[in-house]
């Protein structure tokens, strides 16, 4: 190792920036080079003396007071929240959770739920029929038409109800009742079970 390199390594060793094999090489060089040993000692003492004598008792008290006043003004002038980065992260997470929740709530219902609702409508109409009411409910044809439309939309028009691909549960609950397709049906009473 050259002395020029050793001088730089001595400075790096003083800050802890020289490690491992570099440090070992420097120590090995210092063992055999009195000049560099003297250099290291001189640097150490000069640094210590400089650290002491360049230190200054300052600044003026008025400066410290002005710094404090500025910090207080800033603190009261607006919300100064030391944990702002953490709070901001939590706020973003809460907003994201809210958005996801709203998004999920806006998703269309699962198909089986919708078909279940259609079935309920059919049952309601059927019960109305069985109740012996003298008159049809004013909106019964509308209900029937709605139920038919819903079934068609779900791909479960009358012929589909009894196909293999139909939902088994629905097939069990709705045995063949002579449902007619919309195109050929005439308003009339149908029985849904």
């Amino acid at each position, binding site marked *: 190792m050259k002395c020029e390199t050793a001088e730089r390594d001595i400075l790096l060793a003083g800050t802890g920036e020289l490690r491992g094999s570099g440090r070992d090489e420097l120590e090995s060089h210092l063992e055999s080079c009195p000049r560099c040993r*003297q250099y290291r000692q001189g640097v150490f003492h000069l640094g210590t003396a400089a*650290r002491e004598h360049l230190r*200054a008792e*300052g600044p003026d008290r008025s400066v410290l007071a002005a710094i*404090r006043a500025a910090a207080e003004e800033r603190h009261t002038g607006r919300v100064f929240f030391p944990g702002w980065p953490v709070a901001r992260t939590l706020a973003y997470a809460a907003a994201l959770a809210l958005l996801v929740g709203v998004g999920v709530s806006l998703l269309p219902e699962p198909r089986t739920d919708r078909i279940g609702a259609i079935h309920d409508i059919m049952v309601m109409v059927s019960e109305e029929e069985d109740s012996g009411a003298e008159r049809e409910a004013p909106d019964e044809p509308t209900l029937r038409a709605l139920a038919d439309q819903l079934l068609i939309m779900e791909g479960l028009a009358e012929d589909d109800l009894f196909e293999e691909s139909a939902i088994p549960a629905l097939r069990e609950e709705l045995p063949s009742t002579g449902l007619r397709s919309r195109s050929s049906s005439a308003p009339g009473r149908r029985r849904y079970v």
Partner: protein
Amino acid sequence: MEALDALVERYRAPLFGFIVNMTRNPGEADEVFQEVWLKAIRKLGMFRNRNLGGWLMRIAHNAVIDRVRRRKPEVSLDQEHDGGGSLADILAGSDRGASEAVADRDLGRRIRAAVADLPHHQREVFLMRTQMDLAFKEIARIQGTSINTALARMQYALNKLRERLATDYTELTAGSRPATAPTCAGAV
């Protein structure tokens, strides 16, 4: 506020020591010190680095450069200060025995004069190292240069100081005038 007070107090001496030795004017050093902390308070929310001392030094480095660029005549280290006494006396701040204080003050005066005569960048590296105990990697980053350049500036500064303080350096090295304020990080 208490946290800020503790922070300011912790870095007060080394930061002010850096600033006053760079500006070589106590009045100006007060202004720069205040300016540094006001900027630090404004930007504290953006502070992400772990090295607060290095961050403060970066602000101080920029503030000093701005001042140097605006300045006209150089201020001598023995120039009379408004409050009376020379700058060297103001910087002394020692309360040792009389004769020892005189000798010590003389050494301190000589060291301060020698450091004041260093070129700007060499003086800055030397002060960042001795006052704020910054690593050369951090010093290089603040100065916007390579670590090799920072090391070279430090070597040049040390060589100049050794020449300027030849007698004192010999005594220091020989141990006849030990440092009166031993520090853990005595190495430069």
